[in-house]
């Protein structure tokens, strides 16, 4: 196996993993942009999206492609519900307070997952379409590895269009730039925030479906680590910035893969990579690679 093809193999894996992180990171960054809130429960929304898809495909007579559309929609609504229950009552409160509520919400969803779905891992029903291997040169790749970045980029384009060309999108950007002024401009804050959560959760569910297709093991705690890493990706790329989230996702995904690829002795430290990267960014450029907002430091 030539060195080049090995490297290409690693590269494709990294891009694939990176896109998954990117999809989840978008949700984080959109919410943070407006509310300055780390939605700790976002990773668990991702988990719910995957499970809803699972139950939809296995236990309802609906065709899989329909479930793949309905489940994310449903997850979007769960996202709205989450916001109304755990975050809305605390709007305007100290940051610590909302953060604690977010952590509580995350644990609640995880434990609800355990109670409702049970602790045993389940197999994700991957449709045949997404699940076969092709060979390109010396590199073997599962088709899904290509589909993931493709879908992510499509969504990114769609999202960018949405935020720059539509009224709602502009309202979202206005709110994230300057909450006070935008709210004085007659923007329906509640509606915009709900839409933000809907979209973020919808994307997380799509990410979950793709994740499940690539790594077909479902567990109630499956959202915790990817969620955390995706948030780190968002920070690295520049929190509040959607393109930044995507870039951050790729950096994280590629970085993780490359670490293990070139330093296999350190493969046990893989999780730590994300956190080390985070700390470096926070110390060197806290606003992230694409960010322009400077966090107030004293």
């Amino acid at each position, binding site marked *: 196996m030539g060195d080049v093809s090995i490297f290409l193999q690693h590269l494709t894996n990294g891009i694939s993993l990176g896109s998954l992180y990117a999809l989840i990171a978008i949700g984080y960054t959109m919410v*943070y942009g407006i509310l*300055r*809130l*780390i939605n700790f429960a976002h990773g668990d929304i991702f988990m719910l999206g995957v499970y809803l898809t699972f139950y939809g495909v296995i236990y309802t007579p609906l065709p899989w492609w329909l479930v793949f559309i309905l489940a994310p929609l449903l997850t979007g609504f769960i996202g709205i519900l989450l916001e109304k*229950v*755990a975050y809305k*009552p*605390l709007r*305007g*409160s*100290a*940051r*610590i*307070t909302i*953060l*604690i*509520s977010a*952590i*509580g*919400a995350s*644990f*609640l969803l995880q*434990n*609800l997952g*355990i*109670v409702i779905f049970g*602790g045993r891992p389940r197999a994700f029903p991957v449709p045949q379409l997404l699940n076969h291997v092709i060979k390109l040169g010396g590199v073997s790749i599962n088709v899904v590895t290509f589909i993931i970045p493709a879908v992510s980029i499509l969504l990114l384009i769609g999202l960018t269009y949405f935020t720059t060309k539509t009224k709602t999108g502009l309202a979202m950007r206005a709110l994230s730039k300057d909450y006070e002024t935008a709210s004085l401009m007659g923007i329906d804050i509640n509606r915009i925030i709900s839409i933000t959560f809907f979209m973020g959760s919808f994307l997380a569910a799509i990410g979950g479906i793709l994740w499940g297709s690539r790594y077909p093991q479902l567990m109630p705690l499956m959202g*915790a680590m990817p969620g*955390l890493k995706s*948030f*780190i990706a968002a*920070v690295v790329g520049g929190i509040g910035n959607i393109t930044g989230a995507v870039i951050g996702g790729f950096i994280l995904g590629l970085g993780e893969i490359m670490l293990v690829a070139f330093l296999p002795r350190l493969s*046990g*430290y893989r*999780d*730590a990579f*994300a*956190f*080390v990267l*985070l*700390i470096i960014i*926070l*110390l060197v450029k*806290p606003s992230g690679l694409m960010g322009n907002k400077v*966090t*107030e*430091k*004293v």
Partner: protein
Amino acid sequence: MREKSKTHVTLIILVLTILGLFLANRYLDAYKIRIINLSGIYVTLGLSMNLINGMTGMFSLGHAGFMAIGAYTVGILTMPVSMKQMNFFMQPIVPFLANVEWGFLPALLAAGLIAALFGVLIGAPVLRLTDDYLAIATLGFAEIIRVVFTNTQSLTNGALGLKGIPNHTNTWWSWGVALVTMWFISFLMKGTYGKAFLAIREDEVAARAMGINLFKHKVMSFSFGCFFAGVAGGLMAALLGTIDPNMFRITLTFNILLIVVLGGLGKIGGTVIAAVVVTVMMEALRFLDESIDLGLVQIKGIPGMRMVVFSIILIFVVIVREKGFLKRTKGRELTYVKN
């Protein structure tokens, strides 16, 4: 006049506690004593987190990591040499630790000091970040510590963990440390340092304008918090007799956070009560997880309901506190009030 009655109250509480512990050791079974020990340890943990999060307003989620440092320090230092050899059967322990065997008190102090040292090293660079970033950064550190402990086989025995740590912890140690922590923190808060912490919590810019050295005070608060977290970790290690890196995950930090929030950010007395209540409730609410056999009827329990209930309680309390009935200033948390 007030001062005198305050000292009286403190003395009475002290005497009652000692009496209570004495009676407990005499008449209660091992299970209840275990709960009492755990409550004492959680009091120390809750207070140490409260110092950082509640009184200085820095949102740190790194507690589990500092507990791990303290736990492993005590574990490795107090373990008899023969036990060490038995434990490190896969890869021998690093030579300079192979023949070490310390007493409990020095080990505890070492645990606290090493944890505090890491607190300074880690804390110094990141303490200037704002709330949410600090939270994630400290969380990151805790995770890094856990990953490192999992991989350094010759230092910590990695995933195999340590077994056979001498069970030094008894109610005198666990509650003794808790009382010392209570005393120390209230002493600290009464003085100028305490005022500085509060000022930083309320308004950093104004505090700095008043001449308070933000960096120095933040590091001080953080390292004291880490010190007690380390000591509590050591007590935990000596209580369980066995530790491994997987113990020190975010869930542990969440439990402590729950205690701090329930007791009230910034309140010492509240934290103490909350620590005891939460520890007891964790056990008492087991019936939610298990089946209840009422003779004719069997209500099947669902494992995990306990934690669902606790999470709901946390969110509920946080929201109610904000909307509710206690003294506050403009949405910020409660002012510091003793007992």
